């Protein structure tokens, strides 16, 4: 990929996004302090690892959807595309007895292909992103059920597969420090996603499409092609999330997935990605994902009834978007 110099966007991004990112990060710190004071069982190594691993799936989905949201689009299909990818991984590894790496590749490719289909529907057939990806949500959900035969696919014959998520490369080097691989994958992908967004043409055009699509078109950008590429990338992230989930549960569960897209979008928004497009950072999204999982974990540790946990999460999302609006009004 071609790397290019970024001049003015960087400065403006820093100014406008910095506030919300700091807000989200400060919020995360406050959550940690409050929960640590409220329960001695919150700030333990194993619980923090628990929070990290609980973020892995949602975090990876959120990274992918951040690109799409920056273009002022939306992808509602990532939850069920994730499930379909997990099922395809299962088909390759368990049904067809192919090597694990090929199964992983099949999962990621499935995600990318669904993303590609989304991109074509949106940029060539001119369907609104909301409708196109809503259609894909149902298509992927249905296919996952059909292909799996309505049954979970298990990976019991390939113990290596589970290690993708739950093994610990770090734990093998530093005994006792068993951070699961899924967490490493999340951080690795976050860095990669950030590099793509900030250092490549694709990233630059992502912002360009979100700020002013017409201007981008007039200045000679092949809008349809780049948009398709962005949705494909988002789909590939959903595919990776599918592999991580399947590896953690040691099974592909065909009826899961719906609803995960909303958590991912919420993470991006809490992290300062603007739903009107043109703004967003991967660091913000990761922080947003951690805010959600820390909140859920902490409230559970305190045995807050589930009904109220849902209410609190909703309030946080509304507040985050409101902060975004205020910031916009000021600038």
């Amino acid at each position: 990929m071609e790397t290019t110099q970024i001049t003015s966007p960087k400065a403006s991004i820093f100014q406008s996004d910095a506030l919300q990112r700091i807000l989200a990060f400060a919020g995360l710190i406050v959550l940690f302090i409050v929960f640590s004071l409220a329960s001695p069982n919150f700030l333990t190594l194993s619980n923090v690892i628990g929070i990290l691993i609980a973020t892995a799936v949602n975090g990876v989905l959120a990274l992918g959807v951040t690109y799409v949201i920056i273009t002022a689009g939306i992808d509602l299909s990532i939850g069920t595309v994730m499930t379909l990818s997990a099922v395809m991984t299962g088909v390759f590894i368990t049904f067809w007895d192919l090597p694990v790496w090929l199964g992983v590749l099949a999962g990621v490719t499935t995600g990318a292909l669904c993303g590609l289909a989304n991109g074509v529907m949106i940029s060539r057939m001119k369907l609104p992103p909301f409708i196109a990806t809503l259609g894909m949500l149902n298509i992927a959900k249905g296919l996952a059920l059909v292909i799996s035969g309505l049954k979970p696919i298990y990976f019991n014959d390939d113990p290596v597969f589970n290690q993708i998520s739950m093994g610990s490369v770090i734990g093998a080097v530093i005994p006792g420090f068993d951070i699961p691989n899924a967490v490493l994958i999340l951080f690795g992908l976050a860095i990669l996603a950030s590099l793509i967004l900030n250092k490549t043409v694709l990233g630059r055009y992502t912002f360009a499409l979100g700020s002013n699509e017409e201007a981008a078109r007039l200045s000679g950008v092949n809008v349809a092609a780049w948009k398709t590429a962005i949705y494909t990338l988002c789909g590939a992230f959903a595919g990776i999330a599918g592999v991580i989930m399947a590896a953690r549960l040691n099974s592909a569960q065909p009826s899961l997935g719906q609803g995960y897209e909303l958590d991912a979008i919420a993470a991006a928004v809490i992290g300062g990605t603007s739903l009107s497009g043109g703004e967003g950072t991967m660091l913000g999204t990761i922080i947003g994902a951690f805010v959600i999982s820390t909140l859920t974990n902490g409230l559970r540790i305190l045995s807050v009834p589930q009904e109220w946990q849902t209410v609190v999460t909703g309030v946080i999302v509304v507040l985050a978007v409101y902060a975004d609006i205020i910031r916009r009004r000021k600038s």
Partner: protein
Amino acid sequence: MKLHKIVTVVVSLILVFTLVAGCTPGQKSGGSSGKPYIAVISKGFQHQFWQAVKSGAEKAAKDFNVEITFEGPESESMVDKQVEMVQAALDKKPAALCLAALDSKALIPQLEKAKAANIPVIGFDSGVDSDIPVATAATNNIAAAGLAADKMAELIGGSGEVAVIVHDQTSRTGIDRRDGFLNRIKEKYPNITVVDVQYGGGDHLKSTDLAKAIIQAHPNLKGFFGANEGSIIGVLNAVKELKKEGQIVVIGYDSGKQQMDAIRAGIEAGAITQDPIGIGYKCVEAAVKAIKGEKVEKNIDTGFHWYDKTNIDSPEIKPLLYE
């Protein structure tokens, strides 16, 4: 913009077609082959449990020479969708209707229509608050969860902390299994404290993170009860990930491959199984009797059983389990 308009028109046409197709179901009443037609509306079709119910219903259809259709909404919270399905099924004028109601009250208007049309209704899996169903074939979930509580008390030695994960707080089975477990603990085992009851929506991944948080919050936890397959798989994953195998007594519900493996490996102490195939079979059997005007027992208890490592492969238990 022209393309946009065409797309809009095509999409609306498709929508209208599906609507029309949904409203005027095939003229199947009485069955194409002259066999009596029984509409079976379940709570879902995706879960293994419902697949097992379906196979039981199909077996009965074969044995009694009737035609059935088996359908259900995608998730167990879609009460509105089920109401539509029942409505559509009644429009086909079936000889009888078998129904696993998602909500014990919401479907009463449809049941009254069935009664007015002289279509006998047989409930299965869980009942409705109405006299209209001539019979209900179901597991006594309160008693079944009570048995789980007894086993829990026995295995943790009659005292200590236990936690519970249930699939949801509004469905009949969720409420009955939760209350059946909690009430038995309260009545018979004063030294056992239930430290937390949470709901995972039957979602394996969410239930896993949920169970982990509960175990973290209560380091002295001695036992964990999961009220359906998704919940218990979450508990098992949590116990494995926190390396607490053998330190927490895990008791589950229903079956599924992962749960059965865990029981065989000793990570899970045991589980309650219902008889899903029997539920499907007995509701269709009752429907056939009702069509013929024979007397049907009002409450058909389809039974439940405790199984663990020792009897999982026994001839009484094995046919009730599904992978």
